[in-house]
């Protein structure tokens, strides 16, 4: 029986317990439940762990495989270190929502069938919305509503697609497919909305930066990477994904270069990094899928690390924009160093986790002879160093002296950042530890002198480009328009415009309405009188009293008419 219980349920229980628990007990729940989950994740053997009947379907609540365990491991790790980072600062309901959100992500990892997958998918959508709302500002509330609409819409599309596939194939199994018919297309679209793929990627950079400094750390990890896992399980080798991934990679870089808000830079950079993974799933060879999984693992660690350093800065200074920050390295040395480790990792610098994972994806493209894809991914690697590797730490911790002298991170936040920094470097130096967990056997040499030299040239000359082009990258107090402009600005404007034209029509309609009412009033007065006024003489035709004889006469006439009509 216990084999039917998903490790996710431990986090669900913890999310429920966080509210009632108080003081040290609550801290204990936050810090121990993810470790217990991590242990449980590693107790799940390969294969389906039993079935439960639901309607006429056989539900498989828990299915293990190396790929599923890998994602669940990093999600549990994220919940633990995220909890450590947040537990002294975040409100209890934010922690509870974050844990329920993490539970959804881990549940998706072990979902053996499409129905279970959908249920946990929606759990993520609901509680990630709550985490966005925990930002607590009016802007966070509005962004949370837009976020919820987008994800519920994605959920509906996914559900319709799942039902179509289940009806047409008769199976609720999670099997690899290609986007060939309407239903598989709908599943693909539902997943891609969560992956922040174009054209519906604006929700990510809209919502994540509005959450609290602790909330954005959790948000950065789960939704998009669960979508990557779902793509690996359902659409490996779908060629469309190569193009989608490349678009995301470039979109992320360009928008991050334009951005001023420090967490929005990181949010765009999530789209960029997920683009690498989506592209790898599209290539679909064992090496590419290994690369996508490994990169997702590494990405969660260094992206959370970057969001943590941004969170410390926002917590200590209350400022969120590059134009207001700068020179913080003097009083925040630890946060600066951890941020630089994260920035080097995301830029796939040698000896960091980004190098040992992202280069698998590039090699997979090269092995398939995809010259264009390979060259674009390589250019994008340079671009990542530009927008996240240097731009982010430079504008936050260096550039000019903003005069701010905030204290460094509190101990628990510092510890969380140090743990993830250490992991970034460990996975860069000993990549074989991660490679051993990958879904396919790994025959891949992470380091060769030529490759290291090539990447050093690429990255260091991107750095040169950054500093030479600094005048072109002066930060401005602006936001950048995205596709969400269509429903945030254009649609309301069109409606207001139409309403402007419709005004005379409405006025005429209103006039007719008034005239009509007056007529009706006359009619009722004439025939029904004023029945509500007891003391008035009742004047209406039907309101008067009539002699019984007249009534009997009328009934007789009506009955005769009926009999006549019947015989005719």
């Amino acid at each position, binding site marked *: 029986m216990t084999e039917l219980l998903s490790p996710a349920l431990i986090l669900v229980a913890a999310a429920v317990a966080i509210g009632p628990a108080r003081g040290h007990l609550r801290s204990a729940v936050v810090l121990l439940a993810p470790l217990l989950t991590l242990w449980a994740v590693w107790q799940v053997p390969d294969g389906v762990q039993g079935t439960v009947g639901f309607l006429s379907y056989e539900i498989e609540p828990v299915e293990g495989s190396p790929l599923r365990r890998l994602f669940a491991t990093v999600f549990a790790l994220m919940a633990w270190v995220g909890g450590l980072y947040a537990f002294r600062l975040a409100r209890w309901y934010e922690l509870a929502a974050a844990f329920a959100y993490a539970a959804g992500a881990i549940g998706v990892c072990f979902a053996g069938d499409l129905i279970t997958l959908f249920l946990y998918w929606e759990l993520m959508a609901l509680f990630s919305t709550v985490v966005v709302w925990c930002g607590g500002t*009016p*802007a966070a*509330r*509005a*962004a949370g509503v837009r976020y919820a609409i987008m994800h519920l819409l994605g959920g509906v599309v996914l559900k319709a697609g799942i039902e179509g596939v289940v009806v047409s194939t008769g199976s609720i199994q999670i099997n690899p497919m290609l986007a060939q018919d309407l239903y598989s297309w709908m599943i693909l679209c539902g997943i891609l909305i969560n992956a922040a793929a174009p054209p519906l990627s604006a929700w990510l950079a809209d919502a994540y930066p509005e959450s609290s400094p602790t909330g954005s750390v959790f948000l950065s990890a789960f939704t998009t990477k669960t979508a990557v896992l779902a793509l690996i399980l359902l659409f490996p080798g779908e060629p469309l994904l190569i193009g989608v991934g490349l678009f995301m990679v470039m979109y992320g*870089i*360009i928008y991050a*270069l*334009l951005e*001023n808000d420090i967490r929005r830079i990181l949010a765009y950079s999530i789209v960029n990094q997920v683009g690498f993974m989506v592209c790898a799933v599209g290539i679909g060879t064992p090496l590419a899928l290994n690369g996508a999984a490994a990169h997702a693992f590494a990405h969660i660690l260094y992206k959370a690390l970057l969001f943590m350093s941004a969170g410390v800065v926002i917590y200590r200074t209350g400022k969120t924009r590059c134009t207001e920050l700068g*020179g913080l*390295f*003097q*009083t925040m*040395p630890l946060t600066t160093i951890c941020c630089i480790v994260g920035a080097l990792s995301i830029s796939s610098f040698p000896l960091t986790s980004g190098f040992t994972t992202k280069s698998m994806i590039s090699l997979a493209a*090269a092995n398939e002879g995809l*010259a264009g894809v*390979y*060259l674009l991914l*390589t*250019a994008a690697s*340079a*671009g990542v160093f*530009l927008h996240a590797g240097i731009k982010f730490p430079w504008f936050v911790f*260096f550039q000019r*002296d903003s005069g701010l002298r905030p204290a460094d991170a509190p101990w628990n936040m510092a510890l969380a950042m140090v743990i993830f920094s250490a992991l970034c470097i460990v996975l860069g130096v000993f990549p074989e530890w991660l490679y051993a967990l990958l879904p396919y056997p790994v025959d891949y040499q992470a380091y*060769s*002198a*030529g*490759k290291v*030299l*090539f*990447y*050093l*040239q*690429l*990255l*260091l*000359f*991107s*750095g*040169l*480009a*950054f500093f030479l*082009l600094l005048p*072109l*990258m002066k930060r*401005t*107090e*602006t*936001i*950048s*328009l*995205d596709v969400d402009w269509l429903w*945030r*600005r254009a649609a*309301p404007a069109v409606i207001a415009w139409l309403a402007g034209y419709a005004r005379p029509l409405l006025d005429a309609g209103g006039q007719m309405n008034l005239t009509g009412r007056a007529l009706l009033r006359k009619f009722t007065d004439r025939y029904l009188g004023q029945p509500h006024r007891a003391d008035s003489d009742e004047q209406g035709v039907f309101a008067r009293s009539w002699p019984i004889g007249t009534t009997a006469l009328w009934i007789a006439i009506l009955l005769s008419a009926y009999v006549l009509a019947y015989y005719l």
Partner: protein
Amino acid sequence: MTTPDREHFLRRPGTITRLWWIFSAILALTVLAQAVVYVKGYFVVDGWFGFGAAYGFLSCLLMVLVAKALGAVLKRPNDYYRERGDHD
């Protein structure tokens, strides 16, 4: 850590000039090292001498310029979505 009258050593002009020299030397070294280290090219061009350096620099230049051009069209003031009385 820093006293008000004494600038952090990373902020002193002398240090910054020195850092530029060191950085330039490292850049030159990474290109020159290709004379002794073989860089495998998957598509001929990427094995050329100094390809990584030139490609990294030029693609960054292109991306910054494209971003600059798009920024002229896409950038709006911070309160763009708020000025309508958007409740947010």
